[in-house]
């Protein structure tokens, strides 16, 4: 499974756009890039998933360059409630949701 590297922590302010970049140099053809969010005392929650180019949903956007060796999660206009840990994962489509979690990025949104 491809290993992912992402910042340990990030700070932002309410109303700002937050971009969290993740590197996954060893990503394979059957791998999808998936992002989860986790609040304290809760289980991880799916945010967005993509294979290439750009994916957007009501929560976030995911930008994936052509070589797929990195990806960027973009959160528009964050609020205090977006303070959480964000995990970048590479998921092998043949392995279902056997997910390999790294340390994640701890995002702190300040007023």
């Amino acid at each position, binding site marked *: 499974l491809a290993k992912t590297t992402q910042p340990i922590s990030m700070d932002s302010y309410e109303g700002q756009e937050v971009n969290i970049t993740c590197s996954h140099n060893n990503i394979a053809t059957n791998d999808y890039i998936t992002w989860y969010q986790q609040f304290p005392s809760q289980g991880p929650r799916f945010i967005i998933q993509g294979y290439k180019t750009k994916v957007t949903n009501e929560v976030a956007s995911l930008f994936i360059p052509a070589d797929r060796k990195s990806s960027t999660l973009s959160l528009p206009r964050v609020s205090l409630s977006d303070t959480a840990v964000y995990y970048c994962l590479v998921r092998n489509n043949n392995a*279902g949701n056997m997910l390999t*979690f790294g340390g994640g990025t701890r995002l702190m949104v300040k007023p």
Partner: protein
Amino acid sequence: EAGVTQFPSHSVIEKGQTVTLRCDPISGHDNLYWYRRVMGKEIKFLLHFVKESKQDESGMPNNRFLAERTGGTYSTLKVQPAELEDSGVYFCASSRRGGGTEAFFGQGTRLTVV
């Protein structure tokens, strides 16, 4: 739609005792996964059920852990006998059949072995 439900939310047991954790997946989800986070470490995969069959149990730490999913509905994870290093948060997740589907996680069971 009800989410993934785990019971109990917290459990404190003594070393050597037995504990059984339960997970109720989202109705209709064939895939069920167990994960855990021990103190200070990352969330680790334990095993994967497809309906009642164990698809992958490569993450189970040792034979003190036994997972079952009778009838392909809810699942139990039994730890017997519990050791201090088993303390942590145990997560269950479920997803629909087929690749590319998101996993829905429960809130976890916090297990403390004293």
